[in-house]
């Protein structure tokens, strides 16, 4: 009998556990409602929103970040050139530079970032659940993601696009066109938009080819390196970095200048975090503008005495630009001083001094024929 009593105790504990679990389930609904509310914040005027649901104000997330004292940035953990961990344990990479820049803008200290390494599958969910404040993890800006996932994408930080890499002894140079690849075997990852693009573009160029398809990109690269295909197609950033990482002789290969698709990589925040989105935008614009004006982390102090009103406003010597965003007026000065301008960030991670030597191309300033153009800061 006593044994039964002992077991009854266990049963009670179990029931309590179940009840706790049910309590948890009740919270779920509340939370889901909140998320739905966030997503429907824009058309709220027309739809009947329940009264008790708390409406997220634009500055709320910004205040949370300031109270917390650091910015939580979702990044790639293992992508060469864009986001990875250095031997001393610090995060490095092109995407990571922007996390540092936002922290410098918000706190005046580029080190106040908490990085969260995210995989492709969990990156947007992490943003939606509030795990990260901002996502800077080479994600393509598309309408579906913007709308269905209720995100606000920032300015494009890197114009990527599908490209083609071929052996130099084909023979080929950067100027080789798709038409010249008539009859080639082309390695491609199957079941991706990359494969569809290849079909479309080759058809448009009027060139016959033989696709050699692989389940994953690694296998495709290995096969190309072994000479099973004449060319391989993937995103330009992938080709440029994996060429160095995977090819036995990187110099034997050339990436054609032809652009086969548009893949604008941009940071993202949750829709409704409008103030944070503003900061994300204007920090990047500030970095682009600084490059255009020739302001670098090395010479930024000498520009503080500049008479040019554009420079004065940019660096916060004149005007109340920072205050309008809820930041200190010299926020872009801090960004440039601690992180650098757009070009510096690019060169440090992908430029001529790195193994990738990725040409600026579309990522050059508009004054140099690229697409990087910042709206005026005034």
């Amino acid at each position, binding site marked *: 009998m*006593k044994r039964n009593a002992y077991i009854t105790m266990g049963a009670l504990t179990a029931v309590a556990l179940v009840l706790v679990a049910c309590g948890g389930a009740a919270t779920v609904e509340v939370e889901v409602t909140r998320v739905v509310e966030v997503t429907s914040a824009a058309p709220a005027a027309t739809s009947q929103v329940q009264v008790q649901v708390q409406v997220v104000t634009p500055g709320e997330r910004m205040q949370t970040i300031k109270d917390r004292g650091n910015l939580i940035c979702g990044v790639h*953990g*293992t992508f060469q*050139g864009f986001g990875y961990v250095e031997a*001393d344990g610090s995060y490095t990479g092109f995407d990571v530079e922007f996390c540092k820049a936002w922290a410098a803008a918000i706190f005046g200290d580029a080190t106040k970032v908490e990085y969260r390494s995210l*995989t492709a599958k969990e990156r947007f969910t992490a943003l939606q659940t509030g795990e990260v404040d901002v996502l800077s993890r080479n994600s393509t800006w598309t309408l579906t993601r913007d709308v269905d996932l209720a995100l606000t994408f920032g300015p494009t930080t890197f114009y990527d696009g599908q490209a083609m890499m071929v052996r130099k002894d084909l023979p080929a140079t950067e100027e080789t066109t798709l038409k010249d690849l008539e009859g080639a075997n082309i390695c491609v990852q199957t079941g991706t938009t990359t494969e569809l693009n290849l079909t479309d573009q080759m058809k448009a160029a009027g060139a016959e080819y033989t696709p050699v398809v692989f389940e994953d990109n690694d296998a495709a690269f290995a096969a190309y390196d072994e000479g099973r295909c004449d060319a391989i197609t993937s995103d330009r950033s992938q080709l440029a970095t994996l060429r160095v*990482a995977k090819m036995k002789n990187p110099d034997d290969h050339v990436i054609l200048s032809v652009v086969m698709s548009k893949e604008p990589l941009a940071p993202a925040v949750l829709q409704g975090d409008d103030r944070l989105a503003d900061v994300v935008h204007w920090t990047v614009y500030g970095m682009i503008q600084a490059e255009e004006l020739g302001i670098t982390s090395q010479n930024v102090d000498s520009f503080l005495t500049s008479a040019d009103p554009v420079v004065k406003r940019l660096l916060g010597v004149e005007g109340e630009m920072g205050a309008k965003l809820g930041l200190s007026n010299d926020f872009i000065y801090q960004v440039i001083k601690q992180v650098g301008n757009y070009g510096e960030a690019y060169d440090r991670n992908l430029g001529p001094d790195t193994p990738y030597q990725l040409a600026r191309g579309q990522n050059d300033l508009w004054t140099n024929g690229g697409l990087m153009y910042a709206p005026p800061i005034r």
Partner: protein
Amino acid sequence: MLAAWLVYLILRPALTWVFTQAEWQVIVTNFRLFMRGQYPDEAVWRLWVGIYFLALVMGMSWGVWGQAARTFAALFGAAALLFVLLPFSLNARLNWVGVLITLVAAMLLARNRAALKPWVILGWVILLPLTIVLTAGAAWLPFLSPVAPRLWGGLLLTLMLTIIGNTLALPLGILLALGRRSSLPAIKSFCIGYIELWRGVPLVTVLFMAQIMLPLFLPAEIRVDPVVRVIIGLTLFEAAYQAENVRGGLQAMPRGQFEAAYALGLNGVLTMLFIILPQALRLVIPALLNSFISLFKDTTLVAIVGLFDLLLIGKTTLAQPDFLGKYREVYAFLFVVYWAFSMMFSYASQRLEKTLGVGTR
């Protein structure tokens, strides 16, 4: 003879590569990352305290129990000696010398002093909690400022996940196993439901739930560290498997054991605690340690939710510009580390069985 020749044929190119062609700089440079990930430098002394404590307890066990603990201590000592000889920083090597000295000193100190036995057992009991407190720290502890578990990485994270996960899962598993054999339908069905539910989902799903869904269930102000979430997921998952292992042991107990205990006047709880469970657990040691090793290897799955365990650290070192394309070196190193630890656990399990006479009496 033929077999030896074949092994030689296979091994020769591998060994040639290991000693002449491979560039091990990627491992040497990133050794810190492989061992402890982003764990801050200024807190590393705490990990050393944990290792010293382990050496102390192990040395004393060797002294007190002699034969049974000797092999473990010797293995530990051999590993320490290896670390002294490898080209790590002077600081680390001096520390390993210190660990070796502690091990031997503790052995000599405790030799033939049976009175120390309860203390040594206490030492083993507090080893894990102490290590966790040292590693994680807490705001209210002097000298131990908190280190967020998300900064744990590499081998440290892998071992923490394995050991904490298993240690928490075993008691939970025992309770579930007892519950499943209960005569009360509510408990029985709850336990069966729990076990079958968790055994019916892949670990990857559990990890995704822990990483992605759990934050949705919790209020926005409460932020649980991702590593803690994964430990909770691993524990709940592993408990279901351990429960089935323990149940196997319980079922193997002959009815006579219960009847004899009742005849002696023991009640249900005492019978379970002192008669049935000790024998049942002894019977299933191979299965329990099997689960342990299996979880050790399963921890590599946390890489897909972005935690820097040993495997993901390996991948991130491959993204460093200096070490692009050093796949073979990194994965060979990871192979050796995982293999060495799995072998160690497996060997420990064999020794434990021998000492307790599993299968022989």
